[in-house]
């Protein structure tokens, strides 16, 4: 009986591992909490500034979302400032979707190549090159866009060369490395025995890739695309240099247009904090946040569906 009690005592004493576990939970949770605080702070900051346009400057939300004139310095015939964000919303939307559409097959194709077909070449050439490109400042991308992409577009499609098409080309190259390396990671996390099982069943390599590996990696690939789109959304400097940055509704892919970020970045230093002009720009940032939220949710839904099948 005494031995039992002693054992019970030993077993119920809080071990070092249990203490460490609590410590680890606390530490890692505080780190997460910190990030959440950062996210909440920034989102709150943008929201409070962005909403001021509607609350303290009394701009009609509907006018803001559907208006096509962006001249915050000027008031229109009704005495309301001209803050119509539709051209920028459409511009951002188009350029993000288009560049993701173009980049995704290339990125996933390259990732598959790196991971399934020629891991050796992939690790030796593709991975370092892609990692290198992530670090090139957007201003450099912008300049290459300006001196290479815009003239080529102009020569082929006419017009000034500035526009969504040029922007898409530049963004495509910019997000390619991010999407590729994240896709490669997603493919890497598919267990080897999935492939072996499929190959053992007599499937060709392509069938295995297409039906097994890509299916299993769908959520990860989705994340990669979302991240690419997020980067495309948030990119300003490079896009601003090649899209033309004119607050006009895009009537073709080669007419000068603008994105939320490009107008935001161009204007923010020239306006006074707290003024309508400044608040209107923050409203653009808020729209940007909401749009990226919506994109995220859509992709998540797709990802979930893919997983269920």
């Amino acid at each position, binding site marked *: 009986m005494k031995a039992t009690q002693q054992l019970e005592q030993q077993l119920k004493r809080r071990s070092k591992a249990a203490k460490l*576990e609590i410590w680890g939970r606390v530490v890692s949770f*505080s780190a*997460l909490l910190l990030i959440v605080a950062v996210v909440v702070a920034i989102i709150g900051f943008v929201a409070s500034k962005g909403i001021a346009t509607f609350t303290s400057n009394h701009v009609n939300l509907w006018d803001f979302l559907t208006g096509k004139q962006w001249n915050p310095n000027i008031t229109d015939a009704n005495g309301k400032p001209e803050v119509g964000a539709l051209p920028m919303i459409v511009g951002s939307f188009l350029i993000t979707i288009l560049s993701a559409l173009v980049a995704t097959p290339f990125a996933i194709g390259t990732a598959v190549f790196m991971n399934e077909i020629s891991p050796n070449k992939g690790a030796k050439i593709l991975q370092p090159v892609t*990692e290198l490109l992530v*670090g*090139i*400042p957007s201003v450099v991308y912008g300049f290459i866009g300006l001196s290479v992409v815009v003239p080529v577009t102009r020569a082929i499609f006419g017009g000034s060369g500035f526009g969504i098409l040029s922007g898409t080309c530049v963004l495509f190259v910019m997000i*390619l490395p991010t999407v590729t390396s994240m896709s490669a990671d997603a493919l890497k996390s598919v267990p080897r025995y999935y492939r072996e099982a499929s190959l053992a069943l007599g499937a060709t390599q392509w069938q295995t890739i297409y039906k097994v590996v890509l299916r299993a990696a769908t959520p990860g690939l989705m994340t990669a695309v979302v991240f690419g789109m997020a980067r495309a959304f948030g990119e*300003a400097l490079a896009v601003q240099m090649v899209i033309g940055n004119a607050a006009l509704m895009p009537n073709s892919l080669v007419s000068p247009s603008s994105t939320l970020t490009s107008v935001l970045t161009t204007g923010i230093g020239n306006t006074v904090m707290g003024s309508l002009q400044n608040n209107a720009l923050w409203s653009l940032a808020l729209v940007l946040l909401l749009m990226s939220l919506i994109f995220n949710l859509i992709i998540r839904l797709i990802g979930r569906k893919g997983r269920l099948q």
Partner: protein
Amino acid sequence: MTSKKQNQLAIGALYGIAGLVVLILLALLGYILVSGMPKLSWHFLTSPAKAFLSGGGVGIQLFNSFYLLILAMLISFPIALGAAIYLYEYAKDNWVTATIRTAIEILSSLPSVVVGLFGFLFFVVKLRLGFSILSGAFALTFFNLPLLTRSIEDSLRTISDVQREGGLALGLSRWETVTRVILPAAVPSILTGVILSAGRVFGEAAALIYTAGQSAPALNFADWNPFNISSPLNPMRPAETLAVHIWKINSEGIMPDAKAISSGSSAVLVLAILLFNFAARYLGKRLYKRLTSA
């Protein structure tokens, strides 16, 4: 079409895609390097920049870039690591976790100028850190956290659960298992994430213009006392990085050789990133070997 034909066709297409991508990327790199090479010299790499005369260098900017990168990584890596561990190892798979993940992803789509302005109003003005490396490092942390957290979480995911069970079955806590077994095994994959985000930090300009500032006061490289304003180590001094420098001379530069300096700086930046990648990869390999005796 037989499945064998299809297979050949698909593999061929993949070769094509990969080849095309390599071609695009290499052309890009080649363009930057070739147009910048003529400017590269020891003088360019070590001398300070000049405001309106030709012959300026990027020595201070280069140092600032590395210093800022290291500081930003020192701040953001532990936070991202902790958060990723919690998200992957501890958090229950419910709507709260999903919301947090979504929020973090949204943060990464914010244009960097917004992060920069937030950093300016909060760190520079409110916390009175001034235009300084420290403010810049904090702003970059904001910028860095989503990407880093996400990629570390993915790295943890690549380590099989049987490893975790192995640790638990030995009577180790989850925390010990993660820090002693899982993390060492995940070093190479975590490293990729770190290099990627380091690359972004290196190339970031908009977030730094308002925080670390866009002036590079002369440094005294003989003085390594971090409390001196002219010391390279002082975290409270304004520090223009290479990417900001490129942005600045492209937008308002009036020195006669602005274009050459801009191309030269871009080439230096690419080479610096290359160097950093190799160094990080080499050290990572060593670390992995030491931790896993692979």
